[in-house]
């Protein structure tokens, strides 16, 4: 244990004291070297191998190896003044703080570095010095003896007058330290006399005379001569200056400048001789003497009992005399001196036994300070003699707690005790315990506590495994204490080390605290840049409370302002940049009309453009291939953009704080290198947090030219607390080359410029083609090949409503513009929803106002419907300069819902650049289509006429607020004539359809195809009419022309989209209902009122319950001369199979008919009665008749006028699907009257398909058919 640092320390601190008494001339002599006399000798007082045989109490001789003397001027032998000592300690700390000052600038140490440091380097070296100083504040204490001077060195210069008298004078009692005089220390000590001879200005004759005089007076052995200052010039430089380590303040090379090597050897020899010949033997003798004396009085049972009894008696003595209870001559002090001397002579056994002896005495005397001192020494002795750690622990603990019990006066001793103990624990690798020892001696005084805490913290690093959290905590505590004592340098130093602990953790509360405070302290010591650097780390303090954040920010800006310069901060966390939000929008051959269209997924566009862009195989026109041929491989992966067109970057900024922050001048950082010197692309990838002042401003310059070869957008905005904002930044290159977007910069409060470099960009650049995406590294996404400027088409659609009703028909204008001078040609357009949008044919064709232009009477050519979805503009359309092309578009909101309309316009450039031959303009619009009128049609065949059908139209107004007026209903295709069955007034009593209102009305339609075969020619006027007016008020209003574009073309697309599987079925009717918004319900108040709405309903099939429709065909009125009783009438039954299956029909007549349909002819007045049914009323009538009559029981057979089926009475026919067959019939009547020819039955059997697997069958009664047979005149 002697070899440990604590052992060495003990050697130095618990060692014999030599009192120096010297004359002023001696001091003067040595001051030539910049040193006092004591200082001159000091380096030569440590003997590493003095090799002196020693015999103390026992008979055993042992050899002393290491030995140290402590030299003190007599004036210093006193208990140091507490205040002075404190000042000195403070000075030590301040001095150390100044030394570390320049280190503070560097980056904080890494935790791994700290851990890998050798043990000795972890704690700063000045701690040992401080600890030593601290222990020295307790020197010459009265309860200990190892500071008692062992010997006295009297020094007189040969230049002194009467040197012998001087010697005597020097040891004059009234000049001796008071401690020696008032009995604390033994004044009877070894004296040694030294004559100093200054070789520079003293004569050797006088010196030798004085020396011989001395020798005769004081004895030969006790006198010595020291010749010094042999160097006349006084400019000796010592290689390893022995004084350097003792005197730090003065420049070391001047020390000892007048001392030659011989002088030093002489001093060394002198000290060695003094120690080995005089001091050690003296101490040896003293030990033996004391030991004998004590053995006689104290050892043995008798003496002990006596002592005990004596102590008891002393109990009554009050404690007041405690301080001066013992003098040097008291037996207790003698024993203590014995112990200390023995300790100093390394006879620890003897020392321990004396200490043990004395400690009980002190305890009994309740002399606690003495007791603690002895315990402390015992601990040290145990330790240094490698005895059990338990004993050491017990003694130290005992000493410590005893000192602590003494209160303030004992605290300093306790501190020393703790320091010893901590050192001992450290020597035994018990660092954790050492740390707690340091922690215990923190005390109340902050500076002292700071040092102790810091020492404790280093112990935590040294524990195995290292307890870094505690290390950090103690450093922080220590730093706070330092700061309280204005030791800012030290505070910074400790916090700096603490940062290394917390940096990698997520304990942000602590981290913020450390960074914030160290930042402020750096600012205090004027290191503003480092201060800013630390403060930057607390800016992202979103988890702190709002007031804290405000303080952080305020102090940060204060400091930044104090620096008085602009700070460019890489990786500034305020605001936080969400890199995953990064989106790059740029245009190569794909251009976008609006932002919304740029954000649409690429594959939607691709699928839309598949047909119109030249295919990849066509070789030359493929820009990708071309590019790879023309360009060096290096650029193959880059994106292409065009000079003069901006590249947009969307980036999300987020304010992590609760306070709103304003951010100014946000712009991108870009590099543009022209193709020629592309190799010089410097990879400036600054470290994550580098701080420079406007250093990278040149980033934003094109490297090829003095002027900026691109322009950047700048933005200012304010982020509220916690707010996120998407910001669009643009860069517009103005010349060809390679453009790299490096990062983004922004200003914070004027003097801080935040810079963020895009390094780890997630490849989310939306416009990348899918198949290339994999190859693209993140930085590639931000690298662009800038090509020569090209024409760029701009397009917009005027007045496109965002919200409209289903069926709304609008006239829109697509405006295309090419601002560049070079023309573009070969324009093609494709629309994602041809059902919604229909391009017009001519430029600006509408002259009359919409919607009147759609009405009949305006001459227009009927266009054939363009089935392909690609619309090619006429070849002669070429755009250039300021001229804009206005092309009409028809929009019809086909179905309700939210619709995304995509337009893509392809165009080719003349003056083709090599890389890009064509471009596309992409436009995207969203429509919200609200439900309006919903129609459904039901067509049932007329029971009486094959060509006529009853149509029931159900209309529901599904709109929420608006009511509609119905304008017209038209059938499409000219085949079907339509006519009203009731007056418009009765159908629409309120003229308009209110929201939610449903309505049914009936129409009749008539197949005109076979007109002419019908018997009823009266209907021919109506037959040609395909439109029905459904309004009343304005008869001037014309019909809308549904055969013209755009209604026709929209209808065509409706047809194809409403198409069902059996759309080929010829017997379907298409209706167009045209309505407009009721004038009264202009609820929206917008100018954007729909003018007309068209509702298309296609493929309405004729529905009926049975698959057959038939009619009896024959005369209705007949004149017959009943003079010939039999009247035969030829009839025809036309049966039509309306189903899709093969139908077999059997026809049966029943002669004895239970029919009473005819008004009984017996009721008379038959002659004048005629019944000629009106077509429009027929249906109603028949149904009435059937309804009222069927329920009645059949009247008597006799009452019915007799007729018989005289022809075919039963047959069976097969009718092909959708075809007609005729069965000839004949009846015979015998009397005039009205005959109801419904006494037949049709039994049908339908096999849906050819295989007849599923058959259905049914029976139908015949319809009433009234035949009037009249007597001819």
């Amino acid at each position, binding site marked *: 244990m002697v070899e440990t640092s604590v052992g060495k320390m003990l050697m130095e601190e618990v060692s014999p004291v030599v009192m120096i008494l010297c004359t002023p001339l001696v001091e003067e002599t040595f001051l030539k070297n910049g040193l006092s006399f004591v200082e001159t000798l000091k380096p030569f007082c440590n003997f590493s191998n003095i090799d002196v045989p020693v015999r103390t109490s026992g008979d055993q001789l042992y050899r002393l190896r290491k030995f140290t003397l402590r030299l003190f001027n007599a004036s210093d032998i006193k208990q140091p003044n507490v205040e002075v000592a404190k000042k000195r300690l403070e000075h030590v700390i301040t001095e150390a703080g100044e030394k570390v000052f320049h280190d503070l600038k560097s980056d904080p140490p890494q935790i791994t570095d700290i851990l890998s440091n050798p043990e000795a380097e972890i704690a700063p070296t000045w701690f040992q010095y401080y600890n030593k100083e601290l222990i020295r504040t307790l020197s010459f204490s009265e309860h200990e003896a190892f500071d008692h001077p062992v010997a006295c060195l009297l020094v007189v210069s040969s230049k002194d007058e009467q040197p012998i008298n001087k010697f005597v004078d020097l040891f004059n009692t009234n000049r001796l330290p008071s401690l020696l005089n008032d009995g604390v220390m033994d004044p009877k000590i070894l004296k040694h006399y030294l004559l100093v001879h200054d070789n520079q200005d003293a004569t050797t004759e006088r010196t030798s005379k004085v020396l011989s005089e001395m020798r005769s007076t004081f004895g030969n052995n006790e006198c010595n001569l020291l010749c010094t200052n042999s160097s006349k010039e006084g400019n000796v430089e010592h290689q390893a200056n022995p004084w350097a380590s003792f005197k730090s303040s003065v420049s070391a090379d001047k020390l000892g400048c007048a001392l030659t090597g011989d002088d030093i050897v002489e001093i060394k020899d002198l000290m060695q001789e003094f120690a080995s010949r005089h001091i050690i033997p003296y101490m040896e003798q003293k030990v033996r003497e004391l030991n004998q004396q004590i053995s006689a009085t104290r050892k043995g049972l008798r003496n002990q009992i006596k002592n005990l009894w004596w102590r008891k008696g002393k109990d009554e003595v009050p404690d007041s005399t405690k301080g001066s209870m013992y003098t040097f001559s008291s037996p207790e002090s003698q024993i203590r001196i014995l112990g200390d001397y023995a300790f100093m002579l390394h006879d620890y056994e003897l020392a321990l036994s004396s200490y043990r002896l004395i400690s009980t005495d002190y305890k009994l005397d309740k002399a606690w300070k003495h007791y603690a001192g002895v315990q402390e020494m015992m601990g040290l002795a145990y330790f240094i003699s490698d005895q059990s750690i338990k004993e050491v622990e017990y003694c130290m603990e005992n000493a410590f707690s005893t000192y602590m019990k003494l209160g303030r006066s004992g605290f300093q001793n306790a501190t020393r005790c703790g320091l010893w103990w901590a050192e001992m624990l450290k020597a035994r690798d018990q660092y954790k315990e050492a740390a707690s020892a340091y922690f215990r001696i923190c005390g109340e005084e902050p500076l002292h506590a700071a040092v102790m805490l810091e020492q404790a913290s280093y112990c935590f690093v040294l524990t195995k495994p290292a*307890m*870094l959290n505690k290390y950090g*905590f103690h450093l922080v505590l220590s730093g706070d204490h330092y700061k309280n004592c204005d030791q800012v340098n030290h505070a910074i130093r400790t916090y700096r080390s603490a940062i290394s602990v917390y940096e990698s953790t997520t304990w942000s509360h602590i981290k913020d605290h450390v960074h914030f405070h160290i930042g402020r302290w750096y600012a205090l010591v004027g290191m503003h840049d480092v201060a800013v650097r630390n403060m930057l780390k607390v800016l992202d303090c979103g988890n702190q409370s709002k007031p804290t954040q405000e303080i952080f920010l305020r102090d940060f800006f204060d400091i930044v302002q104090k620096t008085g310069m602009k700070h460019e901060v890489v990786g500034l966390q305020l605001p936080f940049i969400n890199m995953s939000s990064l989106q790059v929008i740029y245009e190569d051959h794909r251009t976008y009309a609006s932002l919304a269209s740029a954000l649409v997924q690429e594959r939607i566009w691709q699928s839309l453009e598949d047909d119109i862009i030249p295919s990849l195989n066509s070789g030359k026109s493929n820009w990708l291939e071309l590019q790879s041929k023309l360009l060096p491989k290096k650029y193959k992966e880059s994106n292409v953009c065009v000079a003069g067109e901006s590249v947009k970057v969307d980036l999300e900024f987020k304010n992590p704080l609760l306070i709103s922050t304003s951010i100014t001048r946000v712009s991108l950082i870009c590099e543009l290198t022209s193709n020629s010197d592309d190799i010089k692309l410097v990879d400036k990838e600054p470290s994550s947090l580098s701080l420079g002042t406007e250093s990278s401003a040149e980033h934003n310059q094109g490297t090829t030219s003095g002027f900026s070869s691109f322009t950047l957008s700048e933005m200012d905005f304010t982020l509220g607390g916690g707010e996120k904002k998407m910001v669009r930044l643009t860069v517009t290159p103005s010349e060809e080359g390679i453009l790299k977007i490096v990062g983004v910069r922004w200003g914070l409060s004027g003097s801080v410029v935040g810079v963020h470099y895009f390094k780890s960009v997630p490849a989310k650049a939306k416009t990348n083609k899918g198949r290339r995406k994999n190859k693209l590294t993140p930085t590639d996404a931000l690298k662009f090949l800038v090509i020569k400027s090209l024409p760029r088409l701009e397009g917009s659609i005027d007045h496109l409503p965002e919200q409209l009703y289903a069926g709304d028909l609008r006239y829109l204008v697509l405006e295309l513009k090419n601002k560049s001078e070079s023309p573009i040609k070969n324009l093609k357009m494709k629309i994602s929803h041809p059902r919604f949008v229909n391009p017009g044919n001519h430029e600006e064709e509408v002259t009359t106002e919409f919607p009147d232009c759609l009405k009949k009477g305006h001459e227009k050519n009927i266009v054939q419907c363009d089935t392909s979805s690609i619309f090619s503009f006429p070849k002669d359309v070429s755009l250039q300069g300021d001229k804009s092309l206005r092309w009409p578009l028809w929009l019809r909101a086909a179905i309700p819902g939210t619709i995304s309309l995509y337009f893509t316009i392809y165009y080719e450039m003349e003056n083709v650049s090599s890389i890009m031959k064509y471009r596309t303009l992409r436009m995207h619009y969203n429509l919200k289509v609200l439900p309006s009128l919903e129609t459904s049609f039901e067509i049932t065949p007329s029971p009486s006429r094959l060509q006529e059908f009853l149509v029931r139209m159900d209309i529901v107004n599904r709109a929420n607020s608006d009511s509609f007026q119905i304008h017209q209903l038209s059938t499409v295709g000219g085949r079907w004539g339509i006519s009203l069955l009731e007056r418009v007034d009765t159908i629409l009593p309120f003229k308009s359809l209110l929201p939610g209102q449903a309505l049914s009305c009936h129409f009749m339609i008539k197949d005109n195809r076979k007109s002419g075969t019908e018997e009823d020619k009266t209907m021919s006027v109506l037959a040609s009419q395909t439109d029905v007016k459904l309004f009343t008020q304005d008869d001037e209003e014309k019909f809308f022309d549904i055969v013209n574009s755009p209604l026709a073309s929209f209808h065509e697309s409706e047809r194809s989209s409403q198409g069902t599987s059996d759309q080929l079925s010829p017997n379907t009717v298409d209706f167009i209902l045209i309505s407009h918004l009721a004038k009264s319900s202009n609820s929206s108040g917008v100018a954007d009122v729909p003018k007309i709405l068209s509702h298309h309903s296609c493929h309405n099939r004729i529905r009926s319950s049975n698959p057959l429709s038939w009619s009896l065909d024959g005369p209705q009125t007949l004149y017959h001369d009943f003079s010939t009783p039999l009247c035969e009438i030829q009839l025809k039954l036309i049966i039509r199979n309306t189903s899709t299956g093969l139908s077999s029909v059997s026809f049966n007549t029943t002669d004895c008919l239970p029919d009473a349909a005819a008004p009984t002819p017996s009721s008379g007045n038959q002659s004048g009665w005629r019944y000629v049914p009106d077509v429009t009323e027929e249906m109603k009538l028949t149904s009435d008749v059937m309804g009222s009559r069927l329920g009645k029981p059949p009247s008597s057979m006799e009452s019915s006028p007799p007729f018989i089926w005289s022809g075919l009475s039963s047959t069976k026919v097969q009718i092909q699907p959708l075809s007609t067959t005729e069965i000839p019939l004949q009846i015979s009547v015998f009397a005039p009257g009205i005959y109801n020819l419904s006494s037949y039955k049709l039994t049908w059997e339908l096999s849906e398909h050819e295989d007849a697997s599923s058959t259905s069958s049914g029976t139908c009664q015949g319809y009433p058919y009234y035949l009037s047979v009249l007597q001819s005149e």
Partner: protein
Amino acid sequence: MIVCVAVVGHQNNPLYIQSFTEADDALKLHHIVHCSLDVIDERVNNPSKTGTTLNEAFLGLLYPALNYKVYGYLTNTKVKFIMVTTDLDVRDTDVRSFFRKFHAAYVDAVSNPFHVPGKKITSRTFSESVTNIVRSYSFN
């Protein structure tokens, strides 16, 4: 009185830390909790010293700081629970049962499918239940 409870992840990252004092001593409590992690690590790495069985989650008194007592608890997933109390006379059984309840609350909180493991626990329900547990223990 329990002044602070904390949940610390297996990488010694704070998952939840809540103090129950009026004073503004959050920083101090953070430090205390942070330091106690060293002790937990030490206990876990030298189980022989503590004398507790391996299956015991309760780590006992970690260290007596100046005015506080710090108790620890280690779950199977190496998540640490730390409790700081100002009560000087505390029975181990009480602390044990406190931690058991605390553990149950924690398990409930992290069972939330929207909780990201290793991220801070932000559940309001959790903090409410922790507050209730803390309120119900006064140890005196």
